[in-house]
């Protein structure tokens, strides 16, 4: 990644291994995260391949039941804790939040580096658990199975998740303190890009929710290791209490995954429609509403668990309120397209794909929040399909859209646009083919986490597996052309999309200090102006 023109930027300022492993530059730490979560994504994806191959036939003949249970557990653990939760915040957020607010770095650069090391340490514990036999509790670690019954490596996995939790907490702390105190002159709260608002809301969830999962897995570890009674009914405990504590974090965790994705969409849609965002205040407020309401609805994971029916009513009632800010966002993005000047560049295609898939994911959430209907579809493939529409169709689409959008900024290189478009279509197609049949399977009654299943479910499962192979190709393509672009890609200008954000007002790749002089902000976000032109030409601001 050397620069022939000799200009100093954050990538070529130093080449040594130490300069990466001891860096406190938020941009380099973002690259460290990018590499590590990509590795974890590939690992989680391999587990998914195992799952889909097993489900190709009803008999359970590809792997043993034990192996299958470990496959879906490790797929869930890796994807949720080591890919989805850090994905957009730790990579794009880390890189962009300081740049978008005109700061030189996050408030606590060394703590930022510590976050990454904690992530790696947590991942190593979890990998150790996997290499030495795996774990089979499901990513949900329900007691008493996890504390008293499973004979697999629950402890090292729990330790891994505990440690990674602190990585997430520290990232959240860093964002909150940075956004509060380090905005450039003139950058008032209501001029912040919605990406920053989304990360602010996400950080609140990380700080308020993650410690609860940390202490909960610690208690699971204590109960399992020392045979003390906390959740195990054989020792007088209540396993439902575990579910409360688990979902207190793990439901809001879904919003940790999706809110930053929504932030990406707001940036991309405005840029490629050359339009001011429609309803800025409503989108910003809806992020905070989602973060708040997300903490009040966890009991909807427990409608058939033996929870009090009155508590179930309250949780169901509140769950429907989350639908409203989500709907508001989708409507506002759509309205932003109206009378815009829409370019069909690949980041935009990913963003539009997100809007479609997230809409389906969100609407099927209503099915699950409705008490009487959830009783039937709870713990079936309907749920699996629903959360994959949110987490894969939503988060990963947005993550890829964001990576395409900011790749020129991050690496200083352009990727092959035609291939990017192709992979976007392949992913969209493969995704729907994989997961749409699962809605039908779920309503038919196929329970999740089944190693073998009745014959009548096979046709739809074959569709799903076929779709997954297409989806796999779709994910491999960007991996290839992004790597290719590092060496052979065209050099990216400072602002290839003619975008308005502060991050585009500096060079690509940015210098270590981000901006040569601290920018002064005088306009609202997305100030594409009536003529579709930017407020400030990029080179002017840098010079």
């Amino acid at each position: 990644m050397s620069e022939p023109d000799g200009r100093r930027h954050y990538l070529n300022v130093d080449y040594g291994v130490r300069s990466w492993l001891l860096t406190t530059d938020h941009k380099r730490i973002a690259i460290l995260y990018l590499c590590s979560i990509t590795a974890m994504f590939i690992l989680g994806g391999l587990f998914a391949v195992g799952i889909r191959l097993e489900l190709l036939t009803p008999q359970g003949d590809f792997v043993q039941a034990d192996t299958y249970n470990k496959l879906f557990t490790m797929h869930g653990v890796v994807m949720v804790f080591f890919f989805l939760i850090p994905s957009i915040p730790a990579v794009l957020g880390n890189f962009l939040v300081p740049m978008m607010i005109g700061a030189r770095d996050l408030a606590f650069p060394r703590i930022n580096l510590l976050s990454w090391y904690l992530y790696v340490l947590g991942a190593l514990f979890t990998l150790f658990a996997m290499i030495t036999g795996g774990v089979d509790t499901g990513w949900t670690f329900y007691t008493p199975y996890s504390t008293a019954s499973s004979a697999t490596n629950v402890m090292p996995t729990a330790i891994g998740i505990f440690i990674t939790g602190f990585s997430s907490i520290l990232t959240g702390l860093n964002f909150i303190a940075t956004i509060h105190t380090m905005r450039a002159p003139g950058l008032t709260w209501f001029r912040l890009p919605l990406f920053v608002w989304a990360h602010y809301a996400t950080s609140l969830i990380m700080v308020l929710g993650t410690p609860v999962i940390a202490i909960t897995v610690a208690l699971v570890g204590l109960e399992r290791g020392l045979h003390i009674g906390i959740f195990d009914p054989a020792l007088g405990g209540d396993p439902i209490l575990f579910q409360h504590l688990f979902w207190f974090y793990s439901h809001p965790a879904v919003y940790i995954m999706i809110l930053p994705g929504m932030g990406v969409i707001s940036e991309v849609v405005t840029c490629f429609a050359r339009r001011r965002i429609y309803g800025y205040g409503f989108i910003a407020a809806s992020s905070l509403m989602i973060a708040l309401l997300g903490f009040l609805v966890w009991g909807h994971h427990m409608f058939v668990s033996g929870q009090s029916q009155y508590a179930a009513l309250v949780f169901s009632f509140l769950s429907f309120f989350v639908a409203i800010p989500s709907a508001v966002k989708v409507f506002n993005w759509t309205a932003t397209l109206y009378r815009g000047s829409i370019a069909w560049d690949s980041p935009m295609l990913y963003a539009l794909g997100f809007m479609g898939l997230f809409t389906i994911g969100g609407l099927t959430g209503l099915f699950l929040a409705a008490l009487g209907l959830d009783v039937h579809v709870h713990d079936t493939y309907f749920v699996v399909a629903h959360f994959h529409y949110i987490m894969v169709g939503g988060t990963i689409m947005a993550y890829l859209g964001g990576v395409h959008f900011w790749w020129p900024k991050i690496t200083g290189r352009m990727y092959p646009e035609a291939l990017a478009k192709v992979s976007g279509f392949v992913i969209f197609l493969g995704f729907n083919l994989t997961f749409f049949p699962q809605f039908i399977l779920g309503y038919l009654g196929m329970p999740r986490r089944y190693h073998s299943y009745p014959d009548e479910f096979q046709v739809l499962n074959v569709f799903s597996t076929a779709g997954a192979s297409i989806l796999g190709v779709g994910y491999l393509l960007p991996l290839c052309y992004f790597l290719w672009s590092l060496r052979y890609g065209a050099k990216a200008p400072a602002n290839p999309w003619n975008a308005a954000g502060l991050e585009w007002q500096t060079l690509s790749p940015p210098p270590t200090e981000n901006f040569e002089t601290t920018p002064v902000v005088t306009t609202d976000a997305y100030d594409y102006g009536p003529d579709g032109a930017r407020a400030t030409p990029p080179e002017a601001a840098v010079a």
Partner: protein
Amino acid sequence: MHSLSDAQPLAHQFDDTDQQRRAVSFGMWAFLVNEIMFFGGLFATYTVYRVLYAHAFHDGSHHLDITLGTINTAVLIASSLTMALGVWSAEHGKRRPLMAWLLMTLLLGGVFVGIKAVEYHGKWVDHLVPGPGFVWHGEGAQHVQIFYSLYFAMTGFHALHMLVGFGLLTWLIIDARRGRFGPAYYAPVEMVGLYWHFVDIVWIFLFPLLYLIGRH
């Protein structure tokens, strides 16, 4: 090009010391909010089982040493005072009093953990440590065991926080000796102070919830 420490007089990412102080203070408070929720999981577990097994919790609580508990509460409150006085000394540029108050805080913290160790030892001797060795001659042994599981988990995580505090205090004392703190720069003392007071507050709740229930 990078500063050595986030807490250097002015780290490169900040525009001025005022911004730095606000960011550090804000970050610390956000960290404490996270800590509230960390202990919150334990308090929630406690509350549920206390409601379900009120009787067993009272019985279990009777076997805690109320005298030692009260002394420890007083010791910890006193350490909070000495910590606050330490921050005051730093702010007013009084180097020797700062060191003295920090040392005093460390000492009182040591007394607290020492007394806690004596209590733990007593529980060990009385077979009140949860697990296979737990023995309870009375009603609702399982539920009493849950009380003791929570007693050890809550006071254990609290004591762990105390130990982290010892490390922080030691670091402060060394830096104070070097004369690094003064009216212009005492944020580390202030931040460790916030942490220490937080740990004190956790105990302010743990003491009545664990030691004082069902005594009448």
